[in-house]
């Protein structure tokens, strides 16, 4: 159990880090700095999660932060590979180099009206009925009542 001022302190720090990351990802144009800003937002969320986890005496927030770390590592690996490929193509780390969806030597295509359909109503797949409803765990319901 932590005192309430420590909780709100940590929430403020998390909010500040999140907003700084938001401003960074909105304004910066370098792909790598944009990723750093996204990681800054993740850090802010992690601080918030841990603070609430400590305040409520529940491990869920800290477990969630462990998974945030995992996903951040995966994201950074895949994203940096893509950034390297993008840099190999354009020679720049500028996000604006990838803002057009066509090649430079192709004409622009602008759809002025919706393309006409073939007049046949689409058939959508239907989900089969699921199994029986699982029984609730008594030890878990004890904890959820207090949240």
């Amino acid at each position, binding site marked *: 159990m932590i005192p309430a001022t*420590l909780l709100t*302190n940590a929430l403020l720090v998390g909010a500040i880090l999140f907003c*700084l990351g938001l401003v960074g990802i909105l304004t910066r144009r370098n792909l790598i700095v944009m990723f750093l800003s996204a990681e800054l937002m993740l850090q802010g969320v992690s601080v918030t999660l841990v603070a609430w986890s400590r305040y409520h005496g529940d491990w869920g927030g800290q*477990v969630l932060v462990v998974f945030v770390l995992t996903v951040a590592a995966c994201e950074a*690996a895949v994203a940096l590979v893509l950034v390297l490929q993008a840099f190999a193509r354009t020679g720049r780390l500028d996000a604006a180099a990838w803002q057009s969806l066509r090649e430079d030597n192709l004409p622009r295509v602008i759809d002025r009206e919706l393309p006409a359909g073939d007049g046949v109503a689409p058939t959508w797949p239907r989900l089969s009925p699921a199994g029986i409803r699982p029984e609730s765990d008594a030890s878990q319901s004890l*904890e959820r009542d207090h949240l």
Partner: protein
Amino acid sequence: MDPISTTSVAPSGMLLAGSVVALASSLWLLLPKSSDTVTSRRIGVLLGGVALAGFAATGRSLGCVGEDGVFLTVAAVAVVSGLATIVTRSPVYAAIWFAMTLAGVSGVLLVLGAQFLGVATIVVYAGAILVMFLFVLMLAQPSGMASYDRVSNEPMLAAAAGAVLLGLLTLSIGRLSAAEPAACCRMPSRADALAGATTADPITIEAGAPGGADEVNEVARLGAELFGRHLFAVEVAGVLLLVALVGGIAVVSRGEATEADHRREV
């Protein structure tokens, strides 16, 4: 609960508005623009300090900010380095500042009592992810400072949006601390319920409340919770890591493979 926090709403509102304006102008002055001068950046640094002090004062008048010196120190390190991360021109320096932010965040987590996460943040983020960022920067950085590092997109709008969002979040956190006595009344009953459960049910002993009497076994209890109730999620995370590994290698080696195929065909 401090009774002042509920009565002094009006002056803290003025203070908050002032802090939001100061933060927005500071971010606008500090973000890379084509019209930057040394003087404007100095004014930006000054305004940023004023804004952060203003937010701390607002939090104090709303009853949010305590007096824990260690916490305030590490939080200041995290926040100032975070600001430097997004405003510095060179991406390499941005990465280094981000490492400082991680050190501050790790300190915050340690003060909050999350020992494992504090250490894991340093090891995983600063040790692995950040080094990966630096490697990519070394591989991909063109010589000299690029134009896209010196001019940013819509700094005024983004700075205003971020500052306003932070002001709203600060207000809601202040409301939270004003409504906090109710939560305080509820917490002991919950702790009692958990304590009763831990003595009665051997399964829930592993998932005891953090910060209870047994602070020493903190990491062991987090591990028990992680590999007990969240075991399936751990398996999924392992699969995710494997997929990211295979995907990264596949994307990198695809270009080389096609070149080799091309040579073979020729």
